[in-house]
């Protein structure tokens, strides 16, 4: 471009074009910086100090909080509980969500009613769900045990047995989140071009084959999204186990105490130690990142296993 009198305006214009996109996304990053990044960094700062709940900053102690927390048996118990509840809730939930989405994708009567209906459990406040399920799962006087005893079976210790406590809490989580994931997967399913499905029908695929070899691989990006958000949410679970009994500590043997509840007990409960709570928060953050990466790797591979059809179909099927 020849340098002339209007070159400054050209330069301004170039800056405008180059920087405009960044300025448009800047508000998000500024807000994220304030409410996301800053607390993350500040928590790391707190975790390397001796920091009481009310007494405040007592001095730098390096990684002592981390080693204290990792040495406490309750921390590992909380980890085991969290993973147990996470697996019991996320896996059935996602399988159910895909299945229900497939059912809703079909040509039903009153489609909108069914599709909005699955979202109703999501709208109910988690604390309310927790309180109601707590009553229904009560060991002696609860609804579920009443049903079990009426058919002659032994009542189950929903609060006393760790495994059944995890199942009860997982059922609360599934109740809430299945509908949400269903709607997301349904939206993705509806975006699959119908002619791909028709081409598969013409090729002789039955319903099951169509589902596993056409629909699911094309849903891969959405499945990845749903798995990662479920992982993050599932490992941070707090509301449901906390509302599962009146005291909110996770049971007398901490049998359903999750890592977030343990964090709360460290910071605001009997230890009143913010430094240790911050250490737990950072350990949890690293664990979630690790598991999310593992899940991403797995989901890319699993959804990839039926990838022959999309490779051909993706190039544009002309019929």
């Amino acid at each position, binding site marked *: 471009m020849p340098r002339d009198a209007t070159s400054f305006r050209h330069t301004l214009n170039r800056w405008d074009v180059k920087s405009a996109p960044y300025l448009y996304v800047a508000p998000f990053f500024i807000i994220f910086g304030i409410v996301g990044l800053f607390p993350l960094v500040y928590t790391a700062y707190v975790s390397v100090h001796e920091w009481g709940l009310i007494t405040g900053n007592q001095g730098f102690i390096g990684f002592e909080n981390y080693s204290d927390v990792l040495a406490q048996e309750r921390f590992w118990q909380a980890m085991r509980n969290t993973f147990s509840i996470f697996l019991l809730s996320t896996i059935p939930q996602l399988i159910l969500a895909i299945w229900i989405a497939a059912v809703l994708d079909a040509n039903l009567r009153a489609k909108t009613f069914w599709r909005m209906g699955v979202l109703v459990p999501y709208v109910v406040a988690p604390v309310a769900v927790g309180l109601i399920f707590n009553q229904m799962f009560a060991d002696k006087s609860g609804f579920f045990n009443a049903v079990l005893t009426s058919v002659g079976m032994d009542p189950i210790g929903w609060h006393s047995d760790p495994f059944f406590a995890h199942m009860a809490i997982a059922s609360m989580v599934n109740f809430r989140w299945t509908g949400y994931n269903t709607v997301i997967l349904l939206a993705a399913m509806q975006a699959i071009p119908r002619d791909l499905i028709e081409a598969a029908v013409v090729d002789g695929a039955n319903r099951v084959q169509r589902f596993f070899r056409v629909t699911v691989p094309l849903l891969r990006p959405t499945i990845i999204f749903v798995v990662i958000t479920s992982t993050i949410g599932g490992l941070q679970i707090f509301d449901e186990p906390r509302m599962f009994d009146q005291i909110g500590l996770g049971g007398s043997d901490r049998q359903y105490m999750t890592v977030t509840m343990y964090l709360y007990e460290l910071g*605001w409960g009997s230890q009143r130690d913010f430094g240790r709570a911050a250490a737990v928060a950072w350990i949890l953050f690293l664990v979630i990142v690790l598991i999310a990466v593992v899940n991403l790797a797995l989901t890319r591979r699993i959804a990839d296993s039926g990838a022959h059809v999309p490779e051909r179909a993706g190039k544009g099927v002309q019929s």
Partner: protein
Amino acid sequence: MRAKVMISATAVAAMLTLVAGCGADSTDNEGEDGKVTLTVATFNEFGYDDLLDEYMDLNPDVIVKEKKAATSDEARENFMTKLAAGSGLSDIEGVEVDWLPEIMESSDLLTDLTSDEVEGRWLDWKAAQATTGDGALIGYGTDIGPEGVCYRSDLFKKAGLPTDREEVAAAMGSTWDDYFAMGKEFTGKTGTPWFDSADAIFQGMVNQQANPFSSTEPEETLIPLDENTEIKAIYDTIIQASTTDDLSANLQQWSTDWQQAFQNDGFATMLCPGWMLGVIEGNAEGVEGWDIANTFPGGGGNWGGSFLTVPAQGDNVEEAQKLAAWLTAPEQQIKAFKAKGTFPSQVEGLTSPDLLGVTNAFFNDAPTGEILAERAKAVTVVPFKGPSYFAYRQAVTDAINRVDVDESATPDESWEQAISDVAALM
């Protein structure tokens, strides 16, 4: 085109109405014709519902709102969180004696409420609990919890035991052994559990120890749990009575099952501080046969008791102090006692004829004022509770509940777990 304009106009009008409706609620303290709004945070049942209305009638330029937490533990968590945050606490915060020592460590965040008006108002030991080392009074005592034994006279009748409250008091004796022995007789005959929760028995026993978890001579020192022979002996006694002798209904207090058990004849007796009367009446609605006996195993016991504190972070500290002083005056506390059974901690209240004449219709017209006043006189030991009291007590409670309620550990395993829980606090 016109339809489109109409629809969008309606939509905008609807949204504006919604926004206007949402924005109408104002929460500022000083607006509204110069009235002051005070918030009072309590838990369980303080008995203040009518009293706050009365105060508003007496002071037309004050609006008082009550905020109730379901349990003392919830109130404690809320208090700790907001005390640390520096804002969000109510103008008056109810504090229970079990966690009062924890907040005494931050007494500079609470207003010093010393004044001539309240000088000598409370029992010495009650006022001492809320007095800091520097002599500042950071809480006005509300109630104390002198304990009697509440029982179901209809279930006693079925077992052939006496039902008249004086006869029951005589039969129950005055030691824990007598209480458990009567229980074995009852449970043997009817199969119904004797008491509701092993943890409640623990509360009864621990409050009769002078130094449950910390010694005070020459200065305050925590007793490590594995060296605490007194508490271990109590633990063993309780496990013996609740599990081996099967006297416990295996319930956790305040849980759904416990509330239901009142309606299902789940247990025959329970240790009954004054404030529990209101709770029993609420949970056992429709059940007839509750009565209270003028006796307590071990002689006398006090469980709980609360204070009203005024956090320094509030906007209306003076008005709040005035309200707190009024609420904790003997006359008002007696009214609360009549409403919910919260027994006065004020010296004048204990001797007032108004108190001594109180009867409770739900408890078979028992003269609860007189009974609890005598129970209060029988209290000889006030346990020392340091800042770690709450955490240590929680560890032993968990140990007892593991064996009694969850049945997930043997007594020895459970005690070992309690020892390691307490070690983690360091």
